[in-house]
Structure formats: structure tokens, C-alpha cells
């Protein structure tokens, strides 16, 4: 500090570094600004200023955000450096009322002051609440969470291997392992270490999920212990939520405490309140499962026993109904004997009837046979001949007796000439008599021969022997009328060879099989 000049007037040409105490001084712009900066910046330090966002144009090429906040009276510029910008958890836009947490800065080159924001929160909401609401809307629209999400998958009854995404050193892992192992000492667990809070943790969680899906785990637990909303923020990060939703195996989320709910919880298949609760959901109590198995075993055994008893009951009933097979056999044998007797009787009767019928038929047949007819006729002939001969003999005798009587009378009554004459007449008579007998015999024989011939001619076989055929149908009947034949019908022509003997039968006939080509009825 220099002393004042003479007269107590301010010396306008004094060094501008002098304070104003000595009167108005001329300062350089730089000096003034430096002075203001030096006074104001430390005086305000950290400030919280609320105002409405205006002039927001998004990050510039370097990633810094420049905008202003204003109220009814004033406006102040706000700068968010690129290093701070990623921490914003909501989208800035004009009109939004925010609270800037930062420090006052005087920017010498422009002479303007502004707020350098360290943190930025929408007024009336937490930044996270707004960000959450915005992200949630977007994820719901994409069907990652909410009503449109993929269906929740059931957890394996007994997991082969449980994947765990959490921090290797965290209490969450310790709690989880403790409960899981207590429930099932043989459980297999595969940890994929990931930081669960702070910058870059979301990426680590996503990577851990991906790595676990390449292994044989059949369920994944994403967990971390309790903490502030800020600490749990990783599990509201979009990539984490999407990775959980897209996971190949069911995911159980257990983030923070009971009251903490993150978007990850909405994307998971099961939300557990705490790491311990997650272990209880994922790892079944082996003792309980063994008890259940014992129960199943009992049911299997009981059902099988019941089935066997049922059968045993049936067997008992059947056994009671079962008679000694030998006794049964005896009875059967008796019944069989009776039946066979009855059968034999019936058969014998039928046989007898058949035999008699056959004999009758044979007799009739015999009578019908041309040969038999011939023999019968011959017999008739022989009888006729006998009668003839006897008649002849009797006639001759009678006549001889008459002759003898006449001769005697003659001899008695008249002598020689009359006798000679009578003798001559007698011999003539005798000749005539002989001739008449012969003629009668011949006539009878001729008649007989004629009738035999007629008979022979009437025999169908004789007709056939003359070259006629008989037409039989398939059923063995004789076709008599052309109209009765059907086109396409198979017929059999029976022919006897020419000169077939008198005693030929149908069996000696040859056969020609023909098919009816056309039928022309008789006129």
C-alpha cells in the first residue's frame, strides 16, 4: 500500500495495483476480473442453485454441456464438464427445474460468471427417480420389463450348478454361500466376479452374466448387499436390465435389502429380497428333498403292494372256485363217454338209414338199368315161351287123345278107306298144327326184340351214343332250354364215344367245357 499523494487527491496515474482506498484508480480488465474472481469464488465455494433449464443444446463436440438456469429475476450459465456428464441420471431438457450443486466460476475471457455443476438433480424429484421413470418407460416399451416381457421361467428343482454374479469380496457372496451350503452341502456354485457399484460396474455385471451363460450353470443369481440408492444404481442401468432379461437361464435377483427395488428385479425371473433369500429360493434343502423321495418310495411300495394284494385276493377267489382237476377230469370223461355213446347211436342210425336208402336207390337204379330191363323182358319172354310150350304140349296131348278116341271110334265104326282118309286128314292137321305153333313163337320173339330195341333207343345214353351231347350247367343240372343259359356262363357238354357199349354210363362220357357266347331263344 502506497501513501497518498500531495493534496490528498487521488493520483490517477498511480499504479493500478493500489487499492481504491486512496480514491478511484484505473484497473486493467484483467486486474479487475482477477480481483473479483479472487473475492467471489472463495466466498461462495459450493452453492446449490435452483432454476429452470433454458438454452440446453446437448453436449458439445467435447462432451461438455452448456446451458443456463433462470428464474423470474435472473439467469445464470451452467457448465457440466464432460467428465461429470455421464453421472447425470436423467435427460436434461428446457423447462426442467433443476438444482445445480457446484461452484461459482468467473470466466475471465468472457467476463461472465457461471456455475460449474458437480451434481445436477431435478427439483422436486430425485434425479434417480426421474431417470428411473424414464428408463422404465423405455424398457417397458421394448418389452424388457412390464406386461410385455418374456414369460417368467421356473427355477430348476435342484440346480446342477448355480451361477452367481457379485463381488468376490462382498458380504452378499458370503451370506449366499453360507445359506446355500447349509441347505444342500453338495451344491455346486460358480462365481463370476463383478464390481457391483461405481463407475464401470454395470459393464462388469453384464460381462459376468455373459461368461456364466457359456458354462453349464442352470440358474444365475445376481446379488449384492444393501447400500444407498446410489450404491444400488448399477442394477438400474439399462445394459444390466437388458442382459438379465436376455439371459438364457433363469435369473434370480437379490439386490440390497427387502425395501430396495431395482429395474433388474423386474427383468429377473425371481426377485429375492436378500442374498440369503436368494439362496433359499435357488438351493433346495437336501433334507427336504430326501424326505420327499422317501415319501415317493413309500407311495411306490404301497401302490405296488396294493396291486399285489388285489391280485392275491383274486387268486384266492379263483383258488376256491378251482376244483381238483382230476375230479373235473373224471366228470368230463363221463360226459365225454355219454356224448360219444349218443353220438355213436345217432351215427349208427344215420348209417343204417343211409345204407337202406342206398340199397333202395341201388334197387331202383338196378330196375331202371337198360340191362335189367332187358333181363326182365327176357324172363317174361322165357315165361311166355314156357307157357307156350306147355300150352302146346297140353293142346297136342288133348288132340292126340281126341285122335286116339276118334281113331278108336273110327276103327270101331268104319274100316280102311275111311281110316286112310282120316289118316291123311290127320297128318295134314298135324302139320298145320305144328306150323301154327311155330308162327305163334316167332311172333312173340319178334315183338320182344322190337320192344327191347325201343327200350334201348329210349335210354339217354343210347341217344348220346348216337352222337348227341347233353349240356350240363355248373350246378350239375341239365340245360334244356336255350333261354335259360346266360351269356358268359360256363357249360359242360358231355359226349359218349361212338359205339359205346350198351352198358356205358355217364361216367364213360367225355366232357367239353364251353362258355356261352350268345343265347338265341327257341322260336
Amino acid at each position, binding site marked *: 500500500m502506497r501513501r497518498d499523494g500531495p493534496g490528498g487527491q487521488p493520483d490517477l496515474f498511480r499504479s493500478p495495483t493500489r487499492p481504491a482506498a486512496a480514491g478511484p484508480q484505473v484497473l486493467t480488465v484483467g486486474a479487475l476480473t482477477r480481483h473479483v474472481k479472487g473475492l467471489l469464488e472463495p466466498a461462495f465455494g459450493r452453492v446449490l442453485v435452483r432454476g429452470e433449464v433454458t438454452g440446453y443444446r446437448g453436449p458439445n463436440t467435447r462432451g461438455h454441456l452448456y446451458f443456463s438456469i433462470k428464474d423470474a429475476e435472473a439467469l445464470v450459465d451452467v457448465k457440466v464438464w464432460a467428465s461429470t456428464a455421464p453421472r447425470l441420471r436423467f435427460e436434461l431438457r428446457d423447462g426442467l427445474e433443476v438444482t445445480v450443486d457446484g461452484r461459482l466460476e468467473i470466466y475471465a475471457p468472457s467476463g461472465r460468471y457461471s456455475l460449474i455443476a458437480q451434481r445436477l438433480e431435478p427439483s422436486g424429484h430425485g434425479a434417480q427417480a426421474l431417470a428411473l421413470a424414464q428408463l422404465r418407460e423405455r424398457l417397458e416399451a421394448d418389452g424388457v420389463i412390464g406386461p410385455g416381457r418374456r414369460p417368467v421361467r421356473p427355477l*430348476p*428343482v*435342484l*440346480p*446342477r*450348478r448355480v*451361477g452367481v454374479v457379485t*463381488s*468376490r*469380496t*462382498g*458380504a*452378499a457372496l458370503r451370506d449366499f*454361500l453360507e445359506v446355500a*451350503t447349509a441347505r*444342500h*452341502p*453338495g*451344491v*455346486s*456354485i*460358480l*462365481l*463370476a*466376479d463383478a*464390481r*457391483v*457399484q*461405481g463407475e464401470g460396474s454395470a459393464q462388469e455385471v453384464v*460381462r*459376468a452374466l*455373459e*461368461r*456364466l451363460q*457359456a*458354462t453349464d450353470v*442352470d440358474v444365475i443369481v445376481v446379488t*449384492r*448387499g*444393501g*447400500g444407498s440408492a446410489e*450404491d444400488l444404481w448399477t442394477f438400474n442401468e439399462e445394459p444390466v436390465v437388458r442382459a438379465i432379461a436376455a439371459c438364457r437361464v433363469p435369473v434370480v435377483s437379490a439386490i440390497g435389502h427387502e425395501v430396495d427395488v431395482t429395474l433388474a428385479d423386474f427383468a429377473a425371473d425371481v426377485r429375492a429380497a436378500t442374498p440369503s433369500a436368494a439362496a433359499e429360493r435357488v438351493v433346495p434343502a*437336501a433334507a427336504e*428333498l*430326501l424326505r*420327499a*423321495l422317501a415319501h*415317493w*418310495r413309500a*407311495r*411306490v*411300495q404301497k*401302490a*405296488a403292494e*396294493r*396291486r*399285489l394284494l*388285489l*391280485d392275491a385276493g383274486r387268486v384266492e377267489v379263483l383258488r376256491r372256485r378251482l376244483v381238483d382237476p382230476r375230479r373235473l377230469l373224471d366228470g368230463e370223461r363221463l360226459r365225454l363217454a355219454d356224448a360219444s355213446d349218443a353220438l355213436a347211436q345217432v351215427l349208427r342210425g344215420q348209417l343204417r338209414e343211409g345204407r337202406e336208402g342206398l340199397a333202395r336207390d341201388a334197387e331202383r337204379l338196378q330196375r331202371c338199368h337198360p340191362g335189367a330191363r332187358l333181363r326182365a323182358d327176357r324172363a317174361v319172354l322165357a315165361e311166355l315161351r314156357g307157357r307156350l310150350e306147355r300150352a302146346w304140349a297140353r293142346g297136342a296131348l288133348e288132340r292126340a287123345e281126341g285122335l286116339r278116341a276118334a281113331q278108336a271110334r273110327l276103327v270101331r265104326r268104319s274100316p280102311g278107306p275111311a281110316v286112310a282118309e282120316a289118316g291123311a286128314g290127320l297128318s295134314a292137321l298135324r302139320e298145320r298144327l305144328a306150323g301154327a305153333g311155330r308162327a305163334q313163337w316167332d311172333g312173340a320173339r319178334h315183338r320182344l326184340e322190337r320192344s327191347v330195341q325201343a327200350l334201348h333207343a329210349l335210354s339217354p345214353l343210347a341217344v348220346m351214343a348216337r352222337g348227341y351231347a347233353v349240356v350240363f350247367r355248373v350246378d350239375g343240372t341239365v340245360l334244356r332250354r336255350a333261354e335259360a343259359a346266360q351269356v358268359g356262363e360256363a357249360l359242360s357238354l358231355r359226349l359218349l364215344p361212338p359205339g359205346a357199349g350198351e352198358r356205358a354210363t355217364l361216367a364213360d362220357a367225355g366232357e367239353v367245357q364251353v362258355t356261352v357266347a350268345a343265347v338265341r331263344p327257341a322260336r
Partner: protein
Amino acid sequence: MAAKEKKTAVPAEGEGYGEVVKALEAVVQRLESGELSLEASLEAFEQGIGLVRRGERLLKDAERRVEELLAGDGGTKTVPLASRAAASTPASSDDDEDAPF
């Protein structure tokens, strides 16, 4: 009847506990229906007991493996968790020092 006699498919050897229990449930239901022939029920019985034993094996013979999946290109290499955790705890430089969870 023919459909009732149909056997329950036994889950393949690699199948998990859930499949075993599901098959077991089907066998018991068939058996309890009482509609099986004696032969089929004996078969179902054997099948059921076999499945119970298999379930018990899956539980009792499970080999406890608590491992950590190592980060790396393959991503499938594992080390036992206890040793790794013990070895790395003193030098956990890459962890948040103040992580209370």
C-alpha cells in the same frame, strides 16, 4: 387300456433332478391307478424305486464344487473359490476398498 399300459419314459442319464421327480410322479400315478396288469405294475414298481434311488444319488453324491469363473478370453476356466479368495484378499487392489457389501 393300451394307453394305460404305456411305459413312463425314464429320463436320460444326464437329466436333472427335476426330470427324475417328474418321471417318478408319472410312475406313481400309473401305479396308483390300479389299472396296470400285474406284470406292468411290477415293472412300474422297479422303475419307481430306481428313480427314487437316482434322486437320492443326485442329492447325496453331489460333489460340492464352489468355484470362481476366471475372466479371460475363453471364459470357462475355473479355480476353487476358497483358495482364490484367500489368496487375493490381502492384495485386493482392484476392489473398492470401502465396499461394505
